[in-house]
């Protein structure tokens, strides 16, 4: 795992509560609002289960800690999106909270329903970008959520040991997190692959 330069993190005292809201200017039409919100709720929950941070959705976009929006092309931050595939999304390091997704992608929450070869799993990308919002940079571990690339129709939402160690180095462990169970789960997956 890796951190941003200077190792920034949300500096308020633990346990932390962060609010998130969706831009009223969202331009994505291929998914319903409830599908998008459910995918983000699941993505936030992956991180909340391992660190003492709670994420709450807010309707007040202006005052939310994390501001989520789907944008096309140049959207004012100097990093324009490039259309279908290429760059999928980007997010700011702590404590800025901006989270931008490329509205041109074929976003999906269910590959059985979205048959496109270019479909990108929204929950996977959201989980990755939330890692950035919390302070993790890209890792070299291919299986980890914080690996920089994601292929179309690939789903990668479960935090791996590398992700968990990295984020817990910044925020400590959620008191309800079962480290032993997670390690055994990862080990059994590795053994399965080896077999």
């Amino acid at each position: 795992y890796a951190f941003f330069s200077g190792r920034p993190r949300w500096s308020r005292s633990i346990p932390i509560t962060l609010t998130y809201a969706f831009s009223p200017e969202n331009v994505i039409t291929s998914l319903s609002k409830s599908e998008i919100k459910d995918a983000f709720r699941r993505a936030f929950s992956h991180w909340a289960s391992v660190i003492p941070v709670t994420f709450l959705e807010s309707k007040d976009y202006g005052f939310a800690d994390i501001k989520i929006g789907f944008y096309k092309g140049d959207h004012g931050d100097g990093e324009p999106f490039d259309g279908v595939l290429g760059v999928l999304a980007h997010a700011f390091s702590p404590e800025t909270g901006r989270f931008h997704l490329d509205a041109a992608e074929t976003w999906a929450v269910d590959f059985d329903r979205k048959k496109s070869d270019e479909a990108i799993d929204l929950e996977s990308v959201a989980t990755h970008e939330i890692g950035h919002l919390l302070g993790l940079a890209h890792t070299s571990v291919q299986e980890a959520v914080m690996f920089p690339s994601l292929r179309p129709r690939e789903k990668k939402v479960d935090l791996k040991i590398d992700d968990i160690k990295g984020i817990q180095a910044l925020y400590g462990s959620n008191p309800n997190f079962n480290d032993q169970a997670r390690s055994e789960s990862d080990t059994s997956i590795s053994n399965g692959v080896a077999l």
Partner: protein
Amino acid sequence: RTSPFFSSKPTNPTNNHKIRSYTWHEFGKFVDATRGNNINGISELKKYFHRFGYLKMDNLNFTDLFDDHLEHALIKYQEKLGLSVTGKLDENTVSQIISPRCGVSDSAPKFMHAKRH
């Protein structure tokens, strides 16, 4: 942004569909390019490596020469992403390069610090 696509060979056996990258599909023609060659369009690959933190140059007028700088960036990229470190544009490396990805830089990123106004 229409055809032709570059269709890469999958590196992951569990993910056996073809990738169609629009943004970086031109990079497909660089497979097996080697240092010392002058290759039309390879300056775009240098821009890619610069953008994602592998090529640090003061002069951003990138040439189409496959030079030492590009080879060095390629090696750093292969090391960082767990690829075979060949310093060459082999198929696995090019397949990884054209894969859709996050826009945040890979190398000690300072990207995405913003001031509140």
